[in-house]
């Protein structure tokens, strides 16, 4: 994997993680701040509603107590007629004149009182369960409708158990008179002797209480200890119960808390709240339903163990708050910016990190193998410079080793060559009868063998030396105008002996007068290599080697063609490689080093030309090479003689 890619991935992860986590934290903190403030607001609202309900409750109690403070109640019940009990006539209560006066006074007081305070119904019930007076919706009930069965009401007994200035509150029930849900406040009438002949009672409509749960948003409800929703802003209560029996069970009329949510979490929470005795501060719980979180702020009311709850789902809590949405948008935009900026920075940074490495690799690749140079660090990155330093140290060591190798090779070649001077010299001397006498034929033959092998050895050493020079780029080339015709004629004459011996027809098919500025000796060497190569491949009978030169644009094209066995395309590929031999048995015959074509290629390319072969199996082979006019190099001193030819 590329370092750059690694860096980009690594930093991208870091940047994205940082941005996402920062955004998440900011978002979450703002969200929780909003929720907290919402909860506070809801708590505030719950407090207000609880106070309103409480006020209603206490005002009802206070007014009730205030009402019975009127002495007319005591006066009425201290009348001997009242004490004696009322007389019925046709089931209708009869009042004495004195009773009537006081009753009218009572009714007037109650009527006035009802005007000030909205209660559905008030009535005065005596110990026998007989209603003495009743006002329903500000209408005084006729005698005929006064009930005498009030002892059956749930509040009858508890009312008499209360003392003076004490109020009993009755859990909601359906009023048979108003046909709707009410709850009652009662207080006993206490005479001077402490007896309680009656109690006074008024009924508050449940609706006035239910109206108090109205909220703009969310849902407010009051739960009774059994889990019924006594009041619920999200429920429309039936307010006209025509056939409602007295003491109807709340079960038939009030929805249960499971109508708000069937979530077990919610039900458990609500049960816990109802069971808890803590009632001072509003508390809150949450439950999830419909894929979102619902928040409930609750407070216990002072009456009947009821709990007032105010609920909002998450979406509603956030709906008024554009801050959060704005923050989300802002965070998104900033995040994109930061990520984009970060990625650009990472890209630039990673480029900066990898550029010197790539640069270094490029410089390494461009190195001339025969002349390794130190690489100058291009940057200030310590680690990369350490690598370059290490590389330079290595180059120095390699160069030192290379130099030793070169020196050794040159020494070996020299050592191999120097004994050949006396060997060949003495062979020549032995064959000269004028110098040290005449040898017999057998002796001359032996000298010939020695001389031939010494020449071969010299050729081999020379080839190795050439390869070494070409490899190290140390071969020097002459640059003189060459008369190509003269060169080829010289070749022709030189080769005549060899060709005659092998019975080969050689043809110089040059038709033009050509001149080229280059190294004559080296071109001769190459032509010699190619022609002697061909000699090994032509058939023993009818062998033919054609060579020559022709102009090809600015260059001179040389060719050597034979009518030999040809060379297969696979073998052509390796032909110019060092030590490659087409047929080892043939080479033995020719005695080549296997370096001839490699040297030829090296020489031609050094002279700026190209060398190639065209051949098909069985159809002979044609070697071509081009020599351009040398325009660059300066002529070498003419006094320096190359003795390669001389040695032959």
């Amino acid at each position: 994997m590329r370092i750059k890619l690694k860096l980009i991935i690594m930093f991208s992860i870091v940047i994205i993680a940082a941005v996402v986590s920062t955004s998440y934290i900011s978002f979450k903190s703002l969200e929780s701040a909003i929720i907290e403030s919402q909860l506070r607001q809801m708590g505030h609202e719950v407090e207000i509603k609880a106070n309103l309900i409480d006020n209603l409750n206490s005002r009802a109690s206070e007014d009730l107590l205030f009402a019975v403070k009127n002495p007319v109640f005591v006066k009425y019940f201290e009348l001997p007629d009242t004490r004696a009990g009322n007389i019925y006539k046709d089931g209708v209560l009869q009042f004495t004149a004195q009773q009537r006066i006081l009753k009218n006074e009572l009714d007037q007081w109650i009527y006035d009182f009802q005007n000030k305070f909205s209660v559905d119904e008030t009535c005065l019930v005596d110990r026998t369960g007989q209603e003495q007076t009743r006002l329903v919706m500000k209408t005084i009930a006729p005698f005929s409708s006064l009930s005498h069965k009030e002892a059956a009401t749930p509040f009858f007994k508890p009312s008499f158990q209360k003392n003076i200035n004490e109020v009993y509150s009755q859990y909601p029930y359906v009023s048979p008179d108003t046909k709707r849900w009410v709850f009652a406040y009662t207080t006993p009438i206490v005479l001077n002797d402490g007896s309680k002949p009656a109690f006074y009672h008024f009924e508050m409509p449940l609706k006035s209480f239910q109206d108090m749960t109205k909220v703009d948003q969310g849902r407010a409800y009051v739960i009774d200890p059994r889990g019924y929703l006594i009041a619920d802003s999200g429920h429309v209560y039936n307010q006209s119960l025509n056939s409602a029996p007295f003491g109807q069970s709340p079960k038939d009329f009030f929805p249960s808390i499971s109508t708000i949510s069937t979530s077990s979490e919610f039900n458990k929470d609500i049960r816990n709240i109802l069971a808890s005795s803590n009632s001072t501060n509003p508390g809150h719980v949450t439950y999830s339903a419909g894929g979102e979180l619902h928040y409930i702020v609750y407070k216990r009311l002072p009456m009947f163990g009821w709990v007032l709850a105010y609920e909002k789902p998450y979406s509603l809590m956030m709906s008024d708050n554009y801050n959060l949405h704005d923050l989300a948008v802002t965070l998104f935009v900033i995040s994109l910016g930061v990520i984009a900026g970060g990625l650009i920075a990472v890209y630039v940074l990673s480029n900066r990190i990898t550029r010197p490495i790539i640069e270094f690799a490029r410089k390494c690749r461009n190195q001339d193998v025969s002349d390794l140079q130190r690489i100058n660090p291009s940057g200030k990155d310590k680690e990369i410079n350490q690598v370059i330093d290490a590389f330079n140290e290595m180059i120095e060591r390699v160069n030192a080793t290379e130099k030793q190798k070169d020196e050794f090779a040159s020494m070996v070649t020299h050592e191999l060559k120097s004994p050949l001077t006396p060997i060949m010299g003495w062979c020549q001397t032995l064959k000269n009868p004028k110098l040290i006498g005449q040898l017999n034929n057998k002796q001359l033959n032996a000298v010939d063998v020695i001389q031939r092998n010494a020449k071969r050895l010299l050729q081999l050493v020379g080839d190795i030396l050439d390869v070494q020079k070409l490899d190290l780029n140390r071969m020097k080339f002459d640059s003189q105008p060459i008369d190509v015709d003269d060169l080829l004629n010289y070749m022709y004459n030189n080769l005549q002996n060899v060709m005659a011996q092998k019975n080969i027809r050689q043809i110089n098919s040059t038709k033009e007068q050509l001149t080229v500025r280059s190294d004559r000796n080296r071109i001769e060497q190459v032509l010699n290599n190619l022609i002697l190569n061909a000699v090994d491949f032509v058939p023993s009978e009818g062998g033919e080697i054609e060579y020559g030169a022709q102009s090809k644009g600015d260059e001179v094209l040389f060719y050597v063609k034979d009518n030999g066995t040809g060379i297969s395309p696979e073998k052509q590929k390796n032909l110019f490689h060092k030590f490659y031999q087409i047929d080892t048995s043939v080479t033995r015959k020719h005695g080549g080093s296997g370096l001839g074509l490699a040297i030829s290629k090296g020489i031609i390319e050094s002279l700026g030309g190209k060398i190639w072969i065209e051949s098909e199996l069985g159809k002979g082979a044609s070697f071509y090479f081009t020599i351009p006019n040398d325009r660059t190099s300066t002529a070498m001193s003419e006094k320096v003689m190359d003795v390669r030819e001389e040695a032959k």
Partner: protein
Amino acid sequence: MKILGIDDNTDINELLDTVLNGSGHEFIFVKNGTEGLKFIREKKFDIVLLDLAMPEFSGFDVINSLLKEGLLTKQKIILFTASSVLDSEIEELIKKGVHSCIRKPVDLDFLLEKLEQLQV
């Protein structure tokens, strides 16, 4: 011609002695540079065949000494050396005043031919 050979290789010295003296030249040889320098100072030679690679006092030392003493161009110094000496080095020496260079191993006929040319 009077020819001096300076070469540490006895085989070559004896070969040249046989060939050159047998071809009508007057050839004497010494086996090291110090002696060669002494001979050059004392006598006049037409040609000096000087080997470069010799132990202790090499052909280069001989040339440097002759250059200092102004004797380098008094006779034709022909370097007689193996191919291990670079062309550039030889060019350098030729610039200093050395006559020419013949690479070892040498074709004796060529050597004689060359000497013939120099005599004219």
